């Protein structure tokens, strides 16, 4: 079993839909959670990050963390064709060391007009 599980999709939605992307993890040491967006033939770009359980909102994006269930989500409201990309969750421990993030395999999102 991988430390971070993520459904690869693809997830296809119409423009304007609310998108829910999810990851589960098994390592209780993970305390810092990130979402990266990766367009085709590009490197990942940090979209959101959070340390705590609960919700964090940034524009059309909301990151949600449930540490008790080891489950994180990214919600995209009013999705646009420009949101079509692969979304990677990543997570790491925190503390005194420079912990390296562990990535999920990514979910491919297609938003069609």
């Amino acid at each position, binding site marked *: 079993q991988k430390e*971070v599980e*993520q459904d*690869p999709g693809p997830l296809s939605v119409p423009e304007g839909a609310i998108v829910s992307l999810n990851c589960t993890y098994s390592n209780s040491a993970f305390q*810092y959670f990130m979402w*990266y967006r990766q367009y085709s*033939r*590009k*490197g*990942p*770009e*940090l979209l959101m*990050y959070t340390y705590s359980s609960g919700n964090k909102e940034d524009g059309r994006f909301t990151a949600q963390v449930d540490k008790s269930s080891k489950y994180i989500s990214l919600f995209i409201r009013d999705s646009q064709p420009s949101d079509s990309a692969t979304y*990677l969750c*990543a997570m*790491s421990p925190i503390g005194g060391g*420079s*912990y*390296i*993030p*562990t*990535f*999920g*395999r*990514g979910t491919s999102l297609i938003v069609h007009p």
Partner: protein
Amino acid sequence: DAGVTQSPTHLIKTRGQQVTLRCSPKSGHDTVSWYQQALGQGPQFIFQYYEEEERQRGNFPDRFSGHQFPNYSSELNVNALLLGDSALYLCASSPDGRNEKLFFGSGTQLSVL
């Protein structure tokens, strides 16, 4: 302000050959990490360089080696190439040896025939 730049963008090699990939970090960043991203997978951590030393290493064989120069740029070397080394190689930079916010380059697509 230039972001992370990688060269070359594409490379084709044959089994057994050696390859060198190059990375210039984002301005103000002194830490460089290298990742391997196979098709349909998330980035896998290879190693990290900080203050010209390999600081952390992922689960990759000694065929993978690197270097960081005084100007913080970095090289990734892979010897005795295998077909399984075909992947997108990503360089990420960050400040002060930390990994909370990684800035990725667009990667080098390596094909081993």
